[in-house]
């Protein structure tokens, strides 16, 4: 064999040569670089977006063989087992097992629980209603996905959950209902969460009057330690009995919160909210990004999902605000309707937006703690909605 032959074969097996097979691979590499730019420079949810973008980059580099969607298709069809995937698959296939089993989103929820203070919610339980109203976005997007874009019910449910503004919940539900759409849905969910300060304020100003935005709310009552400890236990029992399908997510959220509140497991709480959360975030983000294989991602459906995701966020904001206005009227002007928009999970970004808009209308207005109630209620609400959708469309 001559040197030229060797060089020729080497060139043919190189990624550069294989790139020419399909122009869409180049588009995906550029798209991954764009997402990396958004995460690194514009700081759009960098903790997740950088991992997702890098996973997307790795999976679309020809010849890398790090993720094999066809293996997962065979697994879903029941033709092969996980053992087969471990033997035949690449690194990202193995990491993806945690997504497919629902492990990563649940562990992330444990960390979220360990970082969440349910005190504002316990101090003002009516916040839960706002958290429920903001789930309107999920069902509005679900309806539009079926009625306008003609998606199948399971895919429409996964698209709708973007409106819950909760990344782990969206990934958890989509990995079970529509794994082929995991990448666009996760990217849409995290991108819009990062864009909440741009998405919500125009809707907030459109729906509320200046007088309503200026309303100052009374200070929240103090909440006892005992109540904070009992809350995660009671929520787990009642909600998981009501909707058993939501148990992995909600159970982990509440376990993490119990670690934080009981005061006896500081080490576990610290691990859940730091080390464990960081490790799982790395695995989750890269493996979700890896599902963005060019021939599945570059489709008109991805664009539809991006559009529907934005609609879901807008409807979620509207739902929370409308109920906030109603509660404002019923309470004789004691509730500032702006806190309703915080019902779209996205903790604590949405609550911060409520605070900023309230302070813009009345500089002496401090809505942050009031908005944290609906904000954490939104986390529970979106988990319940996901549990409902899984119970109905999960097969």
């Amino acid at each position, binding site marked *: 064999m001559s040197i030229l032959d060797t060089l020729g074969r080497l060139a043919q097996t190189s990624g550069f040569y294989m790139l020419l097979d399909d122009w869409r691979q180049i588009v995906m590499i550029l798209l991954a670089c764009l997402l990396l730019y958004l995460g690194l420079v514009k700081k759009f949810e960098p903790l997740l977006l950088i991992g997702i973008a890098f996973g997307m980059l790795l999976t679309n580099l020809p010849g890398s063989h790090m993720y094999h969607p066809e293996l997962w298709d065979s697994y879903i069809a029941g033709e092969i087992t996980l053992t087969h995937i471990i033997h035949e698959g690449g690194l990202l296939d193995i990491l993806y097992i945690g997504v497919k089993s629902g492990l990563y989103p649940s562990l992330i929820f444990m960390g979220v629980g360990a970082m969440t203070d349910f005190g504002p*919610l*316990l101090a003002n*339980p*009516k916040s*839960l*209603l706002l*958290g*429920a109203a903001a*789930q*309107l976005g*999920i*069902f*509005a997007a*679900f*309806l539009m996905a*079926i*009625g306008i874009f003609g998606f*199948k*019910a399971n895919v*429409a449910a996964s698209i709708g959950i973007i409106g819950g503004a909760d990344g782990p919940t969206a990934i958890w539900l989509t990995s079970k209902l529509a794994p082929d759409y995991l990448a666009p849905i996760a990217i849409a969910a995290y991108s819009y969460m990062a864009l909440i300060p741009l998405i919500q304020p125009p809707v907030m100003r459109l729906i509320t009057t200046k007088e309503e935005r200026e309303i100052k709310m009374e200070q929240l009552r103090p909440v*006892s330690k*005992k*109540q904070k400890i*009992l*809350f995660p236990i*009671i*929520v787990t029992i*009642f*909600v998981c009995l*009501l*909707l058993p399908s939501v148990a992995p997510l909600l159970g982990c959220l509440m376990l993490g919160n119990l670690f934080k509140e009981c005061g006896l497991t500081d080490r576990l709480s610290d691990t859940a909210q730091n080390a464990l959360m960081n490790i799982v975030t790395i695995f989750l983000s890269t493996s979700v990004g890896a599902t963005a294989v060019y021939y599945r991602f570059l489709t008109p459906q991805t664009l539809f999902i991006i559009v529907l995701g934005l609609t879901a966020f807008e409807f979620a904001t509207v739902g929370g605000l409308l109920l906030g206005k109603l509660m404002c009227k019923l309470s004789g002007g004691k509730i500032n309707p702006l806190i309703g928009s915080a019902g779209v999970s996205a903790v604590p970004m949405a609550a911060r937006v409520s605070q900023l808009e309230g302070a813009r209308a009345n500089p002496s207005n401090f809505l942050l703690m009031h908005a944290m109630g609906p904000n954490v*209620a939104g986390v*529970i*609400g979106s988990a*319940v*909605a996901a549990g*409902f*959708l899984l119970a*109905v469309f999960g097969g």
Partner: protein
Amino acid sequence: MTFLDACLYSVTGLLVVFFALVLLMCIIKIMTAVGDFAESRKKAVPTAVGGIPAPETKGESFVIQQTGPWAPGAAGEVKLYDTDPRTAAMLMAIVADELKAPLNELRFLSIRESKED
């Protein structure tokens, strides 16, 4: 799935979410009410803390009855009028801090709430 079916699922889903969260709201309210009731009973029946006997209510004042040995550095009794022991402890700590003197070097005879007519 038809659009009508999707509408029905959406309404049902939203109702389920509301039901679950309203249920939670009721549970929190009950939990709070029980907690407040227990707290009010606790306040009504004073209990011993840290080995010091619980103060007895005599009309509008608390009197600490010392039965055991004094704590090291203690300086006798303090009479409390319309002031609960917790507030009294905070007031004594504030006075000590303001005077820049150790609390065990100060002698408090009584603490009375001043009322405006």
